[in-house]
């Protein structure tokens, strides 16, 4: 059972990685002059769009959280709306945090906001897919030893890796190398993306490695 689940997780995560890679490669065929660095904002839009649709599709196909109770259509709609609001709020929150970290407040607002959207896609959207708009569940998952399935474990790892990637991505900004990728927010968004993909790859491996120690309590 567990082995199979891990294999499923690995497959899903690899598909996510593939989608990220494709966003960097495919648009160049359709659109002349597209590069991740040169037309960074477009790439940010495409990447967040693709990854989010892909995640939602994956979620609909795999249904990793087996919610026992069938709910009504109206309930589903309200859930969906709630998810949208949460997502938007998380974008705002990320934007605020980035500004607090020293991003300019007024100039390059678009860049900052798109970066916030990218971060939300990599972190909040996944949580919303997996856990739904349920703050208590979120707090449980992101506290120590709170994960109850390998999917939640993977969620923890990818989220952490994304945030760390973005955090480390800020390091090269003060260097005076004058490279195109040092422009705000390229290094940070690249860092977040690399962190996200790394997290996606690491998560199944880590779970596989520690599968003996991981015991999930059920509630």
């Amino acid at each position: 059972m567990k082995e199979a689940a891990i294999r499923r997780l690995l497959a899903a995560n690899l598909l996510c990685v593939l989608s990220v890679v494709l966003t960097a490669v495919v648009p160049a065929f359709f659109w002349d002059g597209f590069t991740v660095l040169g037309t960074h904002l477009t790439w940010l839009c495409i990447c967040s769009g693709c990854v989010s649709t892909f995640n939602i599709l994956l979620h609909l196909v795999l249904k990793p959280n087996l919610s026992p109770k069938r709910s009504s259509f109206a309930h589903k709609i309200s859930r969906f709306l709630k998810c949208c609001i949460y997502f938007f709020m998380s974008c705002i929150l990320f934007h605020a945090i980035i500004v607090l970290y020293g991003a300019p407040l007024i100039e390059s607002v678009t860049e900052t906001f798109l970066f916030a959207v990218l971060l939300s896609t990599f972190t909040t959207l996944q949580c919303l897919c997996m856990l739904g708009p349920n703050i208590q569940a979120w707090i449980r998952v992101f506290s120590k030893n709170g994960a109850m399935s390998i999917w939640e474990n993977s969620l923890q790892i990818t989220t952490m890796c994304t945030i760390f990637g973005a955090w480390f991505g800020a390091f090269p900004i003060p260097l005076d190398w004058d490279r195109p990728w040092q422009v705000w927010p390229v290094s940070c968004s690249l860092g977040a993306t690399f962190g996200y993909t790394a997290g996606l790859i690491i998560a199944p491996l880590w779970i596989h490695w520690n599968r003996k120690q991981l015991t999930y309590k059920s509630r």
Partner: protein
Amino acid sequence: MRLRSGVFAASCLLVEALGVALFLRGFFPVAVRSLPRREARGDPPAEPAPPGPGMVSNWTKIPPPLFKKVVLVLIDALRDDFVFGSKGKQFMPYTTQVVEKGTSYSFIAEAKPPTVTMPRIKALMTGSIPGFIDVIVNLNSPALLDDNLIWQAKTTGKRIIFYGDDTWVKLFPKHFVEHDGTTSFFVSDFTEVDDNVTRHLDRVLKREDWDLLILHYLGLDHIGHMTGPNSPLVGPKLREMDNILKKIHISLLSKEEASLPNLLVVCGDHGMSETGSHGGSSEGEVHTPLLFISSAFEKRSGPLTQPGLVQQTDLASTLAVGLGLPISRNSVGNLILPVVGGKTMREQLRFVHLNGFQLSRLLQENTPAYEKDPGYEHFKIAEKSHGNWIKLYLEGNNSEILLNLGKKVLKQYLEALKTLSSSLSKQVAQYDMYSMMVGTVIIMEVLLLLLLSIPKALSSRAEFEVPLSPPLFSLLFYLMCLMLCAVHVIVCTSAESLCYFCSMSWLTAVGVMMLISALMCGILSAIAKIFENSRLPLKNLVVSSSSWSEIDVLILAGTIGHVLSLGASSFIEEEHQTWYFLINTLCLVLCQELCRNNFLLKEWEPHHSTTMKQNFDSVGEASECKNIDIPAAGNSKLSKATSSAEFIKGSDKWISLASPWIILICCRLLRSLNQTGVQWAHRSDFGHWLTSSEHKSELSFLAAVSLLMILFLVQRRCSLVSKIAMALGLLGVYSYRAAIGNVIFPWQHDSKDISKGITEARFVYVFVLGIVFTGTKDLLKSQVISADSSVKSTGLWEVYSGLVLLAALLFRPHNLPVLVFCLLIQTMMTKYIWRPLKCDAAQITVMHYWFGQAFFYFQGNSNGIATVDISAGFVGLESYVEIPAIFLTAFATYTGPLLWAIHLLCYLSSEVNRNSAAVGHGCFCYAVLRSVPVAIYIVLVTGLRYHLFIWSVFSPKLLYEGVHVFITAAVCLFFMAMDQKHSQKV
């Protein structure tokens, strides 16, 4: 001998300060010089003797002067594009016309960093490159003892008149027959300083009783400091300068007689950066114009070419030749040949020969292996061909061949001069490696000792045994002493260059050697002890790593990351970014911790406390390795779990949750108050907006509100008397700022008389001293009568508030919000974060240290020399007085770290009831936190000493670090005193 960790840390820091001082002395090289005194001098060399017997040139004297009168106009902070660029064309029409069509030579003179006035004047007049250390003594310029142009001119009986910056008068006392110095004290004064110079001009130009006139105009520099190079004030100032130059030039031309022409030299001492400051090595700062205007020169023909690049030091040699003086002995400059281009070939050759001879002699005196130097070899070859040329010349050969040969010799000479002066300039960067090594060894040993004693020093007792007399080590000790002394003797006897450590008395040297060996033995014994006890705790290390909280991980990673970042010049230039980044992350982690405390513990309380009890032993064991004292950790964790219910009390909980965010917003606001660093320093910030003259009322309002807030935040824990004193003091601060014209009172609309505000400032000083005195009295009382700890904490707080008042006085008015936010963040942190989270002393110390560093940059400092606010050293003083000025400037610069350090002491001593060793732990951690970056940085700088940016980036940072060590040592002594009192009480 048993030592408390506070005492141990303080003594370690004192030793480290000694090591840093030694290192700094070795690192900042003394300038290249021949003999220390200028009196002893040889005769000028004769022309090279032509080969062959019987023919001797009889020209042995210094050539006669080329110019009758010389006027040197030095315009402070004159950048090259102010004359040669579009600004020059627009605002300096006369000068531009002279440059383009007149009889003039124009050059761009390159100044060497530090681009600060006094070293630049020295460079212009001595031709040598002053060492970096000159910046520190820039404030009190003692008389220049080296051989220099002014001294030479005076000894040959030239009459010199000087008007302008009084640095000159201090540098050359009694050299001028007439002088009028103006202080550059009020940077906001744009017109008075220049009018003071110009008012003498008409009178002096009519007179005939002078040979050299020096004018130093300061106005442009002041405009640059206040408003930057692109301000509308620059244009009129340049026009004013242009008119002055026109007046001088016309007057010189009218007085010219047939005998000798006159010379007008226009130059800048340094340029200015895009923000208007100077001190660094950006292109705008080092490129200054240099104009020679004289009727002796040929009229410029043909299209205007780009002015050639020369060194600033070249002016000294050129002027010496022009005035018929011997070239200063320490000069590394080259003669600027076009200036003497009108002379005959024989004279030209004579000039360059004199210059080359002087340079090669300087080289001989400074390098043992001078004969192998390519410059010296070139010079010898050129000298030989010069001799041949003279032979031809004396034979009466006067043909084209002679001229061509002469040109060839001239070329050889110029080549030699260039090589000689470049190899001499390199000598300036000759480090005193031996002193540096000794300093580094001391610092590294102290660091190792501190690191090795971390587990002991942070144990609950905060005491440890220092083995002073185990016999084995004493044998080792003597052996090491002997060996080091032998090394010392060998190094010092074989030293080729000057060495500071060798020049110390041998008793001191032996003392230092004994210190080094003692430290070494201490380290060895500490290591031995660790190995003895290492069998058991090995297991605990594994356990400990799992129980590390996020804060611990962040603190460790942040400290290490910051230290590593010091290796990159950009990260040093932008170090503020590192600290802002770290404290932001710290706030977010604290926020997460608070969330967990508030939400999770409530939910999981029963479960948690049982696990806590189970894990208690292991946590206790682990925490010993993890630098936490056992009872404190145990207590805190247990009480964290049990008291969480009572802790969460409605609104308090939400304020507590919001406080990290409020702190984050405060930090963000402060960050945009002062843009600092290098790359983004030119971005507009609130500070510049506030200081511009049209926003004076806003600034006044802000200053008033800030002072009120300071009063509100500080008075809570003060006694009534100090409350009143504080209020009056803050009122005094405002009236001081109003008196010197920074802010205005609402009822005062015309900006009338601007005074120095001496009375107001002294009024505030009285209150500062009064408050500090009351605090000290309380502290002494608590020690003597051993009253309850409340007296002591009131006393500490009063000392702290006295320092806050002093800071409020010294800070520029637009920086007062920094002080407010500092107090606000401290209050919030104490009340809503540290108390509820029950952080241990080590964590709190690290947080204080980080915030202190961040506030250092929030107040507008950077790692460049240019941002030091020297005006703080003059607050309330009539004139420059060395000791108070240095003290006040250091205090104003390091206000952030100091206030946070004292606050740390206040906080920890109020926590004494919970953890008796808190102060000792704090002191020890503070010492470790300071020693780690310093030690690593010193090693890095030693490795990077030939880096391109060593003078512009690494050396200023080294100075900042060094001064910070001295200040931290003082703070730790204060800590130790507080800790001592407590121990006596218990």
